[in-house]
């Protein structure tokens, strides 16, 4: 006599057997004590599993989770703020350098005797720039360009210092 397989037992429990298969299985179960015992045990396990209770999560876990979330949100926010600070610091630094270079160029202070090719080129270019501005817009415009660049430099330095203080804070 061929006993029912584990697969057939489980399909019987889950009501997945076709009518014909079910009929054959029932006929066998009626005469086979081994299989009817097996089925009864499996049905008991199935019923037992439906009775199982869930484990209780520890008390106060909600608060702990919400605290973790709040902490991470704060850290994400401060990271973003820090990044913004660094970017603005960098851009202000560039602005300050441009302001300084612009001011110096308009003043042509760098016209000192040097062998360095770069500085010679700088001297030459700033002198040319000064003469172009002076010729095109007059001496007054040149003065106002100088003043604008100086102001630009001072304002950039001021904000740069403020940003630095904010980051340190």
């Amino acid at each position, binding site marked *: 006599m061929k006993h029912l397989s584990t697969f057939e037992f*489980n399909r019987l*429990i*889950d009501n997945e057997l076709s009518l014909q298969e079910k009929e054959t299985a029932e006929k066998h179960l009626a005469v086979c004590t081994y299989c009817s015992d097996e089925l009864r045990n499996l049905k008991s*396990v199935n019923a037992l599993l439906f009775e*199982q209770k869930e484990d209780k*999560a520890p008390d106060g876990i909600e608060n702990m*989770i919400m605290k973790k*979330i709040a902490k991470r949100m704060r850290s994400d926010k401060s990271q973003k703020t820090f990044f913004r600070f660094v970017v603005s610091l960098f851009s202000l630094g560039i602005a300050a350098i441009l302001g300084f270079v612009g001011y110096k160029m308009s003043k042509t202070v760098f016209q000192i005797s040097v062998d360095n090719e770069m500085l010679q080129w700088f001297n030459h270019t700033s002198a040319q720039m000064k003469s172009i501005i002076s010729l095109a817009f007059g001496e007054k415009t040149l003065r106002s360009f100088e003043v604008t660049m100086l102001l630009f430099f001072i304002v950039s330095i001021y904000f740069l210092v403020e940003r630095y203080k904010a980051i340190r804070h």
Partner: protein
Amino acid sequence: MKHLSDIEIIDSVLQGNANDYSLLISRYKHKAFSLLKRILKNEMDAEEVLQDCFVKAFFALKSFKREAKFSTWFYRIVYNSAVTKLSGKKRKIEQEMLSIDNEDNLLTLSVPEKELSQEKSELLNFAIQELPENYSVVITLFYLESMSCEEISKIINTSVNNVKVLLHRSRTALKEIISQKHLERELL
């Protein structure tokens, strides 16, 4: 607020009411904890991973596509986190085992005498803990979370037929464990 659906709570959280997330936590904490405890077989690990899962899910809420149920999406996070934790733990145990001569003693599991006198549900939990992780996952999701085989297949990323096979095997394995531990009288 308690009668809100998962989707309504998620919408509220995404609109900036982060505190509403605690409603989802209280809705799923016990079930997710049960699942984690059965996979990890350790209460402290389960608690730690549970917290991480909820935090992870909170920050991933924007990416939650409403095609599937929130529970399916969330249990997927839980299952994957548990598997990751478990693989790390197994690696650690393997390393520790190499330095210990008497290996057999560590892996031998026996029913402590006092547990036989404990409640039926505790005995059942004990028997389930003896099952391999994939069996206890399927059993927990199917019986405790009342999930269909289709839903379970999405969570553990396998076919529906495979879930059915796992379910059949886990029932049979549980029956064997109950019989091996002589718990038939108490449980069956």
